[in-house]
Protein backbone atom coordinates (compact mmCIF):
# COMPACT_ATOMS: atom_id res chain seq x y z
CA UNK A 1 0.00 0.00 0.00
CA UNK A 2 1.32 3.43 -0.84
CA UNK A 3 0.40 6.77 0.57
CA UNK A 4 -2.11 7.49 -2.18
CA UNK A 5 -4.12 4.38 -1.49
CA UNK A 6 -3.95 5.06 2.23
CA UNK A 7 -5.31 8.55 1.66
CA UNK A 8 -8.13 7.22 -0.49
CA UNK A 9 -9.03 4.67 2.17
CA UNK A 10 -8.85 7.34 4.83
CA UNK A 11 -11.14 9.60 2.87
CA UNK A 12 -13.58 6.75 2.35
CA UNK A 13 -13.43 5.89 6.03
CA UNK A 14 -14.07 9.42 7.16
CA UNK A 15 -17.08 9.73 4.87
CA UNK A 16 -18.63 6.48 6.13
CA UNK A 17 -17.60 7.39 9.66
CA UNK A 18 -19.46 10.69 9.35
CA UNK A 19 -22.69 8.80 8.67
CA UNK A 20 -22.01 6.44 11.58
CA UNK A 21 -21.35 9.47 13.74
CA UNK A 22 -24.82 10.82 12.99
CA UNK A 23 -26.35 7.52 13.99
CA UNK A 24 -24.18 7.23 17.09
CA UNK A 25 -25.30 10.69 18.21
CA UNK A 26 -28.95 9.86 17.86
CA UNK A 27 -28.49 6.53 19.65
CA UNK A 28 -26.85 8.33 22.57
CA UNK A 29 -29.59 10.97 22.51
CA UNK A 30 -32.46 8.48 22.53
CA UNK A 31 -30.84 6.26 25.14
CA UNK A 32 -30.06 9.06 27.56
CA UNK A 33 -33.56 10.50 27.35
CA UNK A 34 -35.68 7.34 27.15
CA UNK A 35 -33.28 4.47 28.06
CA UNK A 36 -34.28 2.81 24.78
CA UNK A 37 -31.43 1.30 22.76
CA UNK A 38 -32.77 2.28 19.38
CA UNK A 39 -32.09 -0.81 17.24
CA UNK A 40 -34.62 0.36 14.60
CA UNK A 41 -32.40 3.39 13.93
CA UNK A 42 -30.96 1.38 11.02
CA UNK A 43 -34.42 1.00 9.52
CA UNK A 44 -34.87 4.76 9.47
CA UNK A 45 -31.64 4.87 7.46
CA UNK A 46 -32.84 2.19 5.04
CA UNK A 47 -36.29 3.79 4.72
CA UNK A 48 -34.63 7.17 4.17
CA UNK A 49 -32.29 5.82 1.51
CA UNK A 50 -34.97 3.82 -0.31
CA UNK A 51 -37.54 6.62 -0.14
CA UNK A 52 -34.98 9.05 -1.49
CA UNK A 53 -33.95 6.63 -4.24
CA UNK A 54 -37.60 6.15 -5.23
CA UNK A 55 -38.24 9.90 -5.38
CA UNK A 56 -34.97 10.31 -7.27
CA UNK A 57 -36.20 7.76 -9.82
CA UNK A 58 -39.50 9.62 -10.16
CA UNK A 59 -41.55 6.96 -8.38
CA UNK A 60 -43.99 7.21 -5.48
CA UNK A 61 -42.21 5.69 -2.46
CA UNK A 62 -44.18 2.93 -0.71
CA UNK A 63 -43.14 4.34 2.66
CA UNK A 64 -45.87 7.00 2.52
CA UNK A 65 -48.47 4.31 3.23
CA UNK A 66 -46.43 3.13 6.18
CA UNK A 67 -46.41 6.73 7.43
CA UNK A 68 -50.21 6.89 7.18
CA UNK A 69 -50.64 3.57 8.94
CA UNK A 70 -48.31 4.45 11.80
CA UNK A 71 -50.07 7.82 12.14
CA UNK A 72 -53.44 6.12 12.60
CA UNK A 73 -51.97 3.64 15.10
CA UNK A 74 -50.28 6.45 17.05
CA UNK A 75 -53.57 8.35 17.05
CA UNK A 76 -55.41 5.38 18.55
CA UNK A 77 -52.64 4.83 21.12
CA UNK A 78 -52.80 8.52 22.03
CA UNK A 79 -56.58 8.53 22.41
CA UNK A 80 -56.37 5.43 24.60
CA UNK A 81 -53.78 7.00 26.90
CA UNK A 82 -55.94 10.14 27.20
CA UNK A 83 -59.14 8.29 28.03
CA UNK A 84 -59.21 9.56 31.63
CA UNK A 85 -58.20 13.13 31.12
CA UNK A 86 -58.84 14.31 27.60
CA UNK A 87 -58.82 18.05 27.01
CA UNK A 88 -60.04 19.49 23.72
CA UNK A 89 -56.72 21.11 22.95
CA UNK A 90 -54.78 17.91 23.57
CA UNK A 91 -57.10 15.86 21.35
CA UNK A 92 -56.90 18.43 18.55
CA UNK A 93 -53.10 18.51 18.78
CA UNK A 94 -53.05 14.71 18.66
CA UNK A 95 -55.29 14.58 15.59
CA UNK A 96 -53.24 17.25 13.83
CA UNK A 97 -49.98 15.49 14.63
CA UNK A 98 -50.98 11.94 13.80
CA UNK A 99 -53.65 12.24 11.07
CA UNK A 100 -53.39 15.65 9.41
CA UNK A 101 -49.59 15.68 9.11
CA UNK A 102 -49.28 12.29 7.36
CA UNK A 103 -52.26 13.14 5.15
CA UNK A 104 -50.60 16.35 4.01
CA UNK A 105 -47.24 14.62 3.45
CA UNK A 106 -48.91 11.81 1.45
CA UNK A 107 -50.83 14.36 -0.62
CA UNK A 108 -47.75 16.43 -1.35
CA UNK A 109 -45.75 13.33 -2.28
CA UNK A 110 -48.40 12.06 -4.69
CA UNK A 111 -48.54 15.53 -6.22
CA UNK A 112 -44.80 16.01 -6.57
CA UNK A 113 -43.53 12.51 -7.32
CA UNK A 114 -42.29 12.29 -10.87
CA UNK A 115 -41.76 16.03 -11.22
CA UNK A 116 -38.30 17.49 -11.11
CA UNK A 117 -38.18 19.01 -7.62
CA UNK A 118 -34.41 18.90 -7.33
CA UNK A 119 -32.13 17.21 -4.85
CA UNK A 120 -33.09 19.52 -2.00
CA UNK A 121 -36.81 19.02 -2.58
CA UNK A 122 -36.43 15.26 -2.68
CA UNK A 123 -34.32 15.28 0.48
CA UNK A 124 -36.79 17.44 2.41
CA UNK A 125 -39.69 15.29 1.27
CA UNK A 126 -37.83 12.14 2.34
CA UNK A 127 -37.25 13.54 5.82
CA UNK A 128 -40.93 14.53 6.03
CA UNK A 129 -42.00 11.01 5.10
CA UNK A 130 -39.57 9.04 7.27
CA UNK A 131 -38.89 11.18 10.35
CA UNK A 132 -42.47 11.33 11.77
CA UNK A 133 -42.54 7.52 11.87
CA UNK A 134 -40.08 7.60 14.78
CA UNK A 135 -42.25 9.54 17.25
CA UNK A 136 -45.28 7.49 16.15
CA UNK A 137 -43.36 4.33 16.97
CA UNK A 138 -42.47 5.83 20.34
CA UNK A 139 -46.14 6.41 21.11
CA UNK A 140 -47.14 2.94 19.95
CA UNK A 141 -44.34 0.74 21.24
CA UNK A 142 -42.32 2.54 23.89
CA UNK A 143 -44.48 5.05 25.74
CA UNK A 144 -46.67 2.37 27.33
CA UNK A 145 -43.42 0.78 28.64
CA UNK A 146 -41.80 4.00 29.80
CA UNK A 147 -41.22 2.73 33.34
CA UNK A 148 -40.00 -0.72 32.28
CA UNK A 149 -36.41 -1.95 32.62
CA UNK A 150 -33.73 -1.28 30.01
CA UNK A 151 -33.91 -4.94 29.01
CA UNK A 152 -37.66 -4.84 28.35
CA UNK A 153 -37.20 -1.68 26.30
CA UNK A 154 -34.38 -3.33 24.38
CA UNK A 155 -36.61 -6.29 23.52
CA UNK A 156 -39.34 -3.89 22.36
CA UNK A 157 -36.69 -2.17 20.23
CA UNK A 158 -35.62 -5.49 18.67
CA UNK A 159 -39.27 -6.27 17.94
CA UNK A 160 -39.76 -2.88 16.31
CA UNK A 161 -36.63 -3.42 14.25
CA UNK A 162 -37.82 -6.82 12.96
CA UNK A 163 -41.28 -5.48 12.19
CA UNK A 164 -39.93 -2.47 10.30
CA UNK A 165 -37.51 -4.63 8.33
CA UNK A 166 -40.31 -6.97 7.29
CA UNK A 167 -42.52 -4.07 6.28
CA UNK A 168 -39.54 -2.64 4.40
CA UNK A 169 -39.42 -5.79 2.26
CA UNK A 170 -43.11 -5.37 1.43
CA UNK A 171 -42.80 -1.66 0.68
CA UNK A 172 -39.59 -1.58 -1.32
CA UNK A 173 -39.19 -5.15 -2.56
CA UNK A 174 -36.05 -7.28 -2.37
CA UNK A 175 -34.03 -5.30 -4.93
CA UNK A 176 -31.45 -2.76 -3.91
CA UNK A 177 -31.50 0.84 -5.07
CA UNK A 178 -28.91 3.48 -5.52
CA UNK A 179 -29.60 7.17 -5.99
CA UNK A 180 -27.66 9.58 -8.16
CA UNK A 181 -25.11 11.75 -6.40
CA UNK A 182 -26.05 15.21 -5.15
CA UNK A 183 -23.32 16.81 -7.21
CA UNK A 184 -20.90 15.67 -9.88
CA UNK A 185 -18.25 18.06 -8.67
CA UNK A 186 -14.83 16.54 -8.18
CA UNK A 187 -12.18 18.36 -6.24
CA UNK A 188 -8.53 17.61 -6.94
CA UNK A 189 -5.85 18.21 -4.36
CA UNK A 190 -2.52 16.99 -5.66
CA UNK A 191 -2.97 13.38 -6.63
CA UNK A 192 -6.13 13.07 -4.53
CA UNK A 193 -9.62 13.52 -5.87
CA UNK A 194 -12.48 14.27 -3.53
CA UNK A 195 -16.00 13.46 -4.66
CA UNK A 196 -18.66 16.12 -4.25
CA UNK A 197 -20.81 13.57 -2.44
CA UNK A 198 -18.13 13.06 0.21
CA UNK A 199 -18.03 16.78 0.90
CA UNK A 200 -21.82 16.76 1.20
CA UNK A 201 -21.73 13.93 3.73
CA UNK A 202 -19.07 15.47 5.94
CA UNK A 203 -20.61 18.94 5.75
CA UNK A 204 -24.10 17.63 6.57
CA UNK A 205 -22.76 15.73 9.55
CA UNK A 206 -20.89 18.75 10.84
CA UNK A 207 -23.96 20.96 10.39
CA UNK A 208 -26.19 18.47 12.21
CA UNK A 209 -23.74 18.29 15.10
CA UNK A 210 -23.63 22.05 15.34
CA UNK A 211 -27.44 22.18 15.25
CA UNK A 212 -27.69 19.60 18.02
CA UNK A 213 -25.15 21.53 20.07
CA UNK A 214 -27.14 24.74 19.69
CA UNK A 215 -30.40 22.91 20.42
CA UNK A 216 -29.11 21.45 23.69
CA UNK A 217 -27.13 24.50 24.75
CA UNK A 218 -29.56 27.28 24.00
CA UNK A 219 -33.19 26.18 23.77
CA UNK A 220 -35.59 25.39 26.60
CA UNK A 221 -36.69 22.19 24.88
CA UNK A 222 -33.09 21.09 24.49
CA UNK A 223 -32.52 21.71 28.17
CA UNK A 224 -35.75 19.89 28.99
CA UNK A 225 -34.40 16.85 27.15
CA UNK A 226 -31.11 17.12 29.01
CA UNK A 227 -33.04 17.44 32.26
CA UNK A 228 -35.04 14.30 31.51
CA UNK A 229 -31.79 12.48 30.79
CA UNK A 230 -30.12 13.49 34.07
CA UNK A 231 -33.14 13.28 36.37
CA UNK A 232 -36.36 11.73 35.18
CA UNK A 233 -38.32 12.40 38.39
CA UNK A 234 -37.00 15.96 38.65
CA UNK A 235 -38.13 16.59 35.08
CA UNK A 236 -41.64 15.29 35.75
CA UNK A 237 -41.84 17.43 38.89
CA UNK A 238 -41.30 20.61 36.87
CA UNK A 239 -43.93 19.52 34.38
CA UNK A 240 -41.74 18.11 31.59
CA UNK A 241 -43.68 15.08 30.49
CA UNK A 242 -41.60 11.98 29.84
CA UNK A 243 -43.76 11.30 26.79
CA UNK A 244 -43.00 14.72 25.30
CA UNK A 245 -39.26 14.28 25.82
CA UNK A 246 -39.43 10.80 24.35
CA UNK A 247 -41.31 12.03 21.32
CA UNK A 248 -38.80 14.83 20.70
CA UNK A 249 -35.84 12.46 21.11
CA UNK A 250 -37.37 9.92 18.73
CA UNK A 251 -38.30 12.70 16.32
CA UNK A 252 -34.69 13.87 16.23
CA UNK A 253 -33.54 10.27 15.75
CA UNK A 254 -35.99 9.96 12.85
CA UNK A 255 -34.69 13.12 11.20
CA UNK A 256 -31.08 12.04 11.69
CA UNK A 257 -31.80 8.50 10.45
CA UNK A 258 -33.57 9.74 7.33
CA UNK A 259 -30.72 12.17 6.66
CA UNK A 260 -28.19 9.37 7.08
CA UNK A 261 -30.16 7.37 4.55
CA UNK A 262 -30.22 10.22 2.05
CA UNK A 263 -26.46 10.67 2.45
CA UNK A 264 -25.59 6.99 1.91
CA UNK A 265 -28.11 6.40 -0.91
CA UNK A 266 -25.74 7.71 -3.62
CA UNK A 267 -22.68 6.06 -2.01
CA UNK A 268 -23.85 2.47 -1.89
CA UNK A 269 -26.68 0.23 -2.99
CA UNK A 270 -29.21 0.02 -0.17
CA UNK A 271 -31.53 -2.94 0.36
CA UNK A 272 -34.52 -3.14 2.68
CA UNK A 273 -32.33 -4.85 5.30
CA UNK A 274 -29.15 -2.80 4.86
CA UNK A 275 -30.04 -0.47 7.69
CA UNK A 276 -29.30 -2.90 10.47
CA UNK A 277 -25.60 -3.24 9.69
CA UNK A 278 -25.20 0.51 9.22
CA UNK A 279 -27.04 1.15 12.47
CA UNK A 280 -24.93 -1.43 14.26
CA UNK A 281 -21.77 0.44 13.37
CA UNK A 282 -23.27 3.57 14.82
CA UNK A 283 -24.05 1.46 17.86
CA UNK A 284 -20.42 0.34 18.21
CA UNK A 285 -19.43 3.99 18.27
CA UNK A 286 -22.14 4.85 20.79
CA UNK A 287 -20.94 2.04 23.06
CA UNK A 288 -17.37 3.33 22.88
CA UNK A 289 -18.81 6.65 24.05
CA UNK A 290 -20.43 4.79 26.94
CA UNK A 291 -23.89 5.69 25.58
CA UNK A 292 -23.53 9.07 27.30
CA UNK A 293 -20.76 11.07 25.65
CA UNK A 294 -21.57 12.78 22.35
CA UNK A 295 -18.03 13.84 21.36
CA UNK A 296 -16.55 10.43 22.23
CA UNK A 297 -19.24 8.66 20.23
CA UNK A 298 -18.69 10.91 17.19
CA UNK A 299 -14.93 10.38 17.34
CA UNK A 300 -15.36 6.64 17.72
CA UNK A 301 -17.70 6.63 14.72
CA UNK A 302 -15.04 8.14 12.48
CA UNK A 303 -12.59 5.55 13.81
CA UNK A 304 -15.07 2.76 12.99
CA UNK A 305 -15.39 4.14 9.46
CA UNK A 306 -11.62 4.23 8.97
CA UNK A 307 -11.10 0.74 10.42
CA UNK A 308 -13.84 -0.50 8.11
CA UNK A 309 -12.34 1.00 4.97
CA UNK A 310 -8.83 -0.27 5.71
CA UNK A 311 -10.08 -3.75 6.54
CA UNK A 312 -12.06 -3.76 3.30
CA UNK A 313 -8.78 -3.22 1.51
CA UNK A 314 -6.74 -5.82 3.39
CA UNK A 315 -9.24 -8.52 4.23
CA UNK A 316 -12.52 -7.64 2.67
CA UNK A 317 -14.14 -10.95 3.64
CA UNK A 318 -13.51 -10.16 7.29
CA UNK A 319 -14.36 -6.46 7.29
CA UNK A 320 -17.48 -6.76 9.47
CA UNK A 321 -15.68 -9.14 11.83
CA UNK A 322 -12.84 -6.69 12.26
CA UNK A 323 -15.15 -3.72 12.82
CA UNK A 324 -17.20 -5.48 15.46
CA UNK A 325 -14.11 -6.90 17.15
CA UNK A 326 -13.03 -3.32 17.82
CA UNK A 327 -15.75 -3.16 20.45
CA UNK A 328 -14.35 -6.02 22.53
CA UNK A 329 -11.35 -4.26 24.12
CA UNK A 330 -13.60 -1.28 24.84
CA UNK A 331 -16.15 -3.45 26.63
CA UNK A 332 -13.34 -5.19 28.50
CA UNK A 333 -11.84 -1.92 29.72
CA UNK A 334 -15.28 -0.63 30.68
CA UNK A 335 -16.18 -3.73 32.63
CA UNK A 336 -12.83 -3.65 34.44
CA UNK A 337 -13.23 -0.02 35.32
CA UNK A 338 -16.72 -0.43 36.77
CA UNK A 339 -16.91 -3.98 38.13
CA UNK A 340 -20.40 -3.57 39.53
CA UNK A 341 -22.26 -2.93 36.31
CA UNK A 342 -25.92 -3.05 37.18
CA UNK A 343 -28.01 -2.29 34.15
CA UNK A 344 -30.46 -0.02 35.95
CA UNK A 345 -30.33 3.35 37.68
Amino acid at each position, binding site marked *: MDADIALILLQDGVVNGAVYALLALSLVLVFSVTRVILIPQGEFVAYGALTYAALDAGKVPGSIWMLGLLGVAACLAGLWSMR*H*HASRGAVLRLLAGTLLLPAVVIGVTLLLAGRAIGVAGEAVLTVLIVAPMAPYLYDIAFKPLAEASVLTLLIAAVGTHLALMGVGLVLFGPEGFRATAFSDAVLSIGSQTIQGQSIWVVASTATTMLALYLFFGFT*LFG*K*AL*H*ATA*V*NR*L*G*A*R*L*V*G*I*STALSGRIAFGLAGVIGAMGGILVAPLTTVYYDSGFLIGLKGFVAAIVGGMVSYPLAALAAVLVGVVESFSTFWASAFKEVIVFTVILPVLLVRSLRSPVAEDEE
Partner: protein
Amino acid sequence: MILAATGLHVGYGGAAVLHDVSIQVGRGQIITVIGPNGAGKTTLLNAIMGVHEGRGSLQLAGKDIGRLPVEARVRAGMSLVPEKRELFGSLPVEDNLRLGGFRFRHEPALARRRQLDEVYALFPRLRERRKQLAGTLSGGERQMLAMGRALMSRPDLLMLDEPSLGLAPLIVREIFTIIADLRARSVAILLVEQNARAALQIANYGYVLETGRVTLQGASAELAADPRVVETYLGIAKAVPAPV
Protein backbone atom coordinates in the same frame (compact mmCIF):
# COMPACT_ATOMS: atom_id res chain seq x y z
CA MET B 1 -59.93 25.13 50.23
CA ILE B 2 -56.98 24.68 47.90
CA LEU B 3 -56.31 20.98 48.54
CA ALA B 4 -58.74 18.39 49.81
CA ALA B 5 -57.48 14.82 50.06
CA THR B 6 -60.12 12.42 51.33
CA GLY B 7 -59.73 8.76 52.21
CA LEU B 8 -56.29 8.25 50.65
CA HIS B 9 -55.04 4.67 50.53
CA VAL B 10 -51.59 3.87 49.20
CA GLY B 11 -49.87 0.51 49.12
CA TYR B 12 -46.59 -0.88 47.84
CA GLY B 13 -47.00 -4.33 46.36
CA GLY B 14 -49.70 -5.44 48.77
CA ALA B 15 -48.32 -3.73 51.88
CA ALA B 16 -50.49 -0.78 52.85
CA VAL B 17 -48.56 2.41 53.64
CA LEU B 18 -51.39 4.89 54.06
CA HIS B 19 -54.82 4.02 55.42
CA ASP B 20 -57.74 6.34 54.92
CA VAL B 21 -55.78 9.58 55.29
CA SER B 22 -57.70 12.83 54.88
CA ILE B 23 -56.08 16.24 54.97
CA GLN B 24 -57.06 19.71 53.89
CA VAL B 25 -55.06 22.81 53.05
CA GLY B 26 -56.71 26.22 52.90
CA ARG B 27 -55.57 29.15 50.80
CA GLY B 28 -52.67 31.06 52.33
CA GLN B 29 -52.21 28.47 55.05
CA ILE B 30 -49.23 26.48 56.20
CA ILE B 31 -50.26 22.97 57.10
CA THR B 32 -47.74 20.59 58.57
CA VAL B 33 -47.63 16.82 58.78
CA ILE B 34 -45.36 15.50 61.51
CA GLY B 35 -44.62 11.97 62.56
CA PRO B 36 -41.85 9.44 63.01
CA ASN B 37 -39.69 7.91 60.27
CA GLY B 38 -41.57 5.44 58.11
CA ALA B 39 -45.00 6.77 59.06
CA GLY B 40 -45.77 7.43 55.39
CA LYS B 41 -45.23 11.21 55.27
CA THR B 42 -43.18 11.14 52.06
CA THR B 43 -45.60 8.64 50.53
CA LEU B 44 -48.46 11.02 51.33
CA LEU B 45 -46.82 13.90 49.42
CA ASN B 46 -45.88 11.60 46.54
CA ALA B 47 -49.44 10.34 46.30
CA ILE B 48 -50.82 13.89 46.26
CA MET B 49 -48.31 14.83 43.55
CA GLY B 50 -49.09 11.70 41.53
CA VAL B 51 -45.61 10.17 41.79
CA HIS B 52 -47.21 7.19 43.59
CA GLU B 53 -50.56 5.78 42.70
CA GLY B 54 -53.18 5.83 45.40
CA ARG B 55 -56.89 5.44 45.89
CA GLY B 56 -59.12 8.12 47.30
CA SER B 57 -60.34 11.52 46.27
CA LEU B 58 -57.96 14.39 45.49
CA GLN B 59 -59.19 17.88 44.73
CA LEU B 60 -57.11 20.92 43.89
CA ALA B 61 -59.09 24.15 44.07
CA GLY B 62 -62.31 22.16 43.66
CA LYS B 63 -61.13 20.23 40.60
CA ASP B 64 -60.64 16.48 40.68
CA ILE B 65 -56.99 15.75 39.95
CA GLY B 66 -56.88 12.12 41.12
CA ARG B 67 -56.28 10.67 37.66
CA LEU B 68 -53.95 13.29 36.24
CA PRO B 69 -50.29 12.43 35.62
CA VAL B 70 -47.62 14.38 37.52
CA GLU B 71 -47.03 16.86 34.68
CA ALA B 72 -50.70 17.75 34.48
CA ARG B 73 -50.81 18.29 38.24
CA VAL B 74 -47.93 20.76 37.89
CA ARG B 75 -49.97 22.60 35.28
CA ALA B 76 -52.99 22.50 37.61
CA GLY B 77 -50.96 24.52 40.13
CA MET B 78 -49.13 22.28 42.55
CA SER B 79 -45.44 21.71 43.08
CA LEU B 80 -43.40 19.32 45.20
CA VAL B 81 -39.94 19.86 46.62
CA PRO B 82 -38.93 16.25 47.25
CA GLU B 83 -36.77 15.03 50.07
CA LYS B 84 -33.91 14.23 47.69
CA ARG B 85 -34.36 17.58 45.88
CA GLU B 86 -34.05 15.88 42.45
CA LEU B 87 -32.12 18.76 40.87
CA PHE B 88 -30.54 18.68 37.41
CA GLY B 89 -26.98 18.38 38.64
CA SER B 90 -25.19 18.83 35.32
CA LEU B 91 -27.09 22.01 34.46
CA PRO B 92 -26.34 25.47 35.87
CA VAL B 93 -28.49 26.94 38.63
CA GLU B 94 -30.24 29.32 36.26
CA ASP B 95 -31.19 26.54 33.83
CA ASN B 96 -32.65 24.57 36.72
CA LEU B 97 -34.80 27.58 37.56
CA ARG B 98 -35.81 28.22 33.96
CA LEU B 99 -36.89 24.60 33.63
CA GLY B 100 -38.91 25.08 36.81
CA GLY B 101 -41.01 27.48 34.76
CA PHE B 102 -41.41 24.97 31.93
CA ARG B 103 -45.21 25.13 32.13
CA PHE B 104 -45.03 28.82 31.15
CA ARG B 105 -42.78 28.19 28.14
CA HIS B 106 -45.33 29.81 25.82
CA GLU B 107 -45.43 33.03 27.83
CA PRO B 108 -43.45 36.05 26.67
CA ALA B 109 -39.81 36.07 27.74
CA LEU B 110 -40.39 39.20 29.83
CA ALA B 111 -42.94 37.50 32.10
CA ARG B 112 -40.64 34.53 32.59
CA ARG B 113 -37.73 36.85 33.34
CA ARG B 114 -39.82 38.62 35.99
CA GLN B 115 -40.62 35.31 37.67
CA LEU B 116 -36.92 34.46 37.68
CA ASP B 117 -36.10 37.81 39.27
CA GLU B 118 -38.73 37.21 41.94
CA VAL B 119 -37.12 33.90 42.88
CA TYR B 120 -33.68 35.55 42.90
CA ALA B 121 -35.08 38.22 45.22
CA LEU B 122 -36.28 35.50 47.57
CA PHE B 123 -32.97 33.59 47.37
CA PRO B 124 -30.20 36.13 46.64
CA ARG B 125 -27.65 33.32 47.07
CA LEU B 126 -28.98 31.64 43.93
CA ARG B 127 -28.34 34.77 41.88
CA GLU B 128 -24.71 34.77 43.00
CA ARG B 129 -24.43 31.13 41.98
CA ARG B 130 -26.51 31.28 38.83
CA LYS B 131 -23.75 30.04 36.51
CA GLN B 132 -22.63 27.27 38.83
CA LEU B 133 -23.67 23.66 38.16
CA ALA B 134 -26.43 22.53 40.51
CA GLY B 135 -24.43 19.43 41.42
CA THR B 136 -21.71 21.56 43.04
CA LEU B 137 -23.95 23.45 45.48
CA SER B 138 -23.91 23.05 49.25
CA GLY B 139 -26.81 21.37 51.04
CA GLY B 140 -28.52 24.64 51.97
CA GLU B 141 -28.11 26.04 48.48
CA ARG B 142 -29.51 22.86 46.99
CA GLN B 143 -32.62 23.20 49.15
CA MET B 144 -32.96 26.83 48.10
CA LEU B 145 -32.60 25.87 44.45
CA ALA B 146 -35.17 23.10 44.81
CA MET B 147 -37.61 25.56 46.40
CA GLY B 148 -36.83 28.22 43.83
CA ARG B 149 -37.33 25.77 41.00
CA ALA B 150 -40.69 24.74 42.45
CA LEU B 151 -41.76 28.38 42.81
CA MET B 152 -40.92 29.07 39.17
CA SER B 153 -44.09 27.18 38.26
CA ARG B 154 -46.09 29.72 40.35
CA PRO B 155 -47.88 27.04 42.35
CA ASP B 156 -51.01 27.62 44.40
CA LEU B 157 -49.91 24.74 46.59
CA LEU B 158 -46.27 24.12 47.44
CA MET B 159 -45.41 20.83 49.12
CA LEU B 160 -42.13 20.57 51.00
CA ASP B 161 -40.69 17.23 52.05
CA GLU B 162 -38.25 17.59 54.97
CA PRO B 163 -36.78 20.94 53.92
CA SER B 164 -34.54 20.99 56.99
CA LEU B 165 -33.05 17.55 56.40
CA GLY B 166 -29.29 17.57 56.77
CA LEU B 167 -28.97 21.34 57.04
CA ALA B 168 -27.14 23.45 59.61
CA PRO B 169 -29.42 25.12 62.20
CA LEU B 170 -28.69 28.60 60.84
CA ILE B 171 -29.75 27.59 57.33
CA VAL B 172 -32.83 25.84 58.70
CA ARG B 173 -33.90 29.10 60.31
CA GLU B 174 -33.35 30.94 57.02
CA ILE B 175 -35.39 28.38 55.08
CA PHE B 176 -38.24 28.49 57.61
CA THR B 177 -38.31 32.30 57.49
CA ILE B 178 -38.73 32.07 53.74
CA ILE B 179 -41.49 29.47 54.10
CA ALA B 180 -43.36 31.78 56.48
CA ASP B 181 -42.79 34.58 53.96
CA LEU B 182 -44.40 32.59 51.18
CA ARG B 183 -47.65 32.40 53.08
CA ALA B 184 -47.87 36.19 52.83
CA ARG B 185 -47.71 35.77 49.04
CA SER B 186 -50.80 33.55 49.23
CA VAL B 187 -48.97 30.34 48.41
CA ALA B 188 -50.53 27.52 50.41
CA ILE B 189 -47.92 25.20 51.90
CA LEU B 190 -48.04 21.58 52.93
CA LEU B 191 -44.97 20.94 55.03
CA VAL B 192 -43.70 17.52 56.04
CA GLU B 193 -41.10 17.75 58.80
CA GLN B 194 -39.19 15.74 61.33
CA ASN B 195 -38.32 18.96 63.06
CA ALA B 196 -41.76 19.18 64.69
CA ARG B 197 -40.89 22.19 66.82
CA ALA B 198 -39.92 24.39 63.88
CA ALA B 199 -42.83 23.14 61.80
CA LEU B 200 -45.47 23.78 64.46
CA GLN B 201 -44.06 27.25 65.05
CA ILE B 202 -44.88 28.46 61.56
CA ALA B 203 -47.88 26.26 60.71
CA ASN B 204 -51.56 27.13 61.14
CA TYR B 205 -52.70 23.57 61.52
CA GLY B 206 -51.03 20.21 61.90
CA TYR B 207 -51.58 16.51 61.44
CA VAL B 208 -49.73 13.73 63.24
CA LEU B 209 -49.17 10.74 60.98
CA GLU B 210 -48.26 7.44 62.65
CA THR B 211 -47.96 4.08 60.84
CA GLY B 212 -49.99 5.38 57.93
CA ARG B 213 -52.88 6.86 59.91
CA VAL B 214 -53.71 10.35 61.09
CA THR B 215 -53.73 9.88 64.85
CA LEU B 216 -54.07 13.48 65.89
CA GLN B 217 -54.84 16.83 64.32
CA GLY B 218 -55.50 20.36 65.39
CA ALA B 219 -54.41 23.97 65.33
CA SER B 220 -50.65 24.01 65.74
CA ALA B 221 -50.76 25.83 69.06
CA GLU B 222 -53.05 23.11 70.42
CA LEU B 223 -50.88 20.37 69.00
CA ALA B 224 -47.75 21.93 70.44
CA ALA B 225 -49.42 21.84 73.86
CA ASP B 226 -50.79 18.32 73.53
CA PRO B 227 -48.96 16.06 75.99
CA ARG B 228 -48.68 13.21 73.44
CA VAL B 229 -47.02 15.49 70.90
CA VAL B 230 -44.84 17.09 73.54
CA GLU B 231 -43.64 13.74 74.77
CA THR B 232 -43.00 12.07 71.43
CA TYR B 233 -42.09 14.84 69.01
CA LEU B 234 -40.95 17.87 70.96
CA GLY B 235 -38.61 15.83 73.08
CA ILE B 236 -39.50 17.27 76.48
CA ALA B 237 -39.93 14.23 78.65
CA LYS B 238 -42.38 14.32 81.49
CA ALA B 239 -40.92 14.04 84.95
CA VAL B 240 -39.63 10.53 85.26
CA PRO B 241 -39.36 8.93 88.66
CA ALA B 242 -35.77 8.79 89.73
CA PRO B 243 -34.17 5.37 89.36
CA VAL B 244 -33.89 3.44 92.55
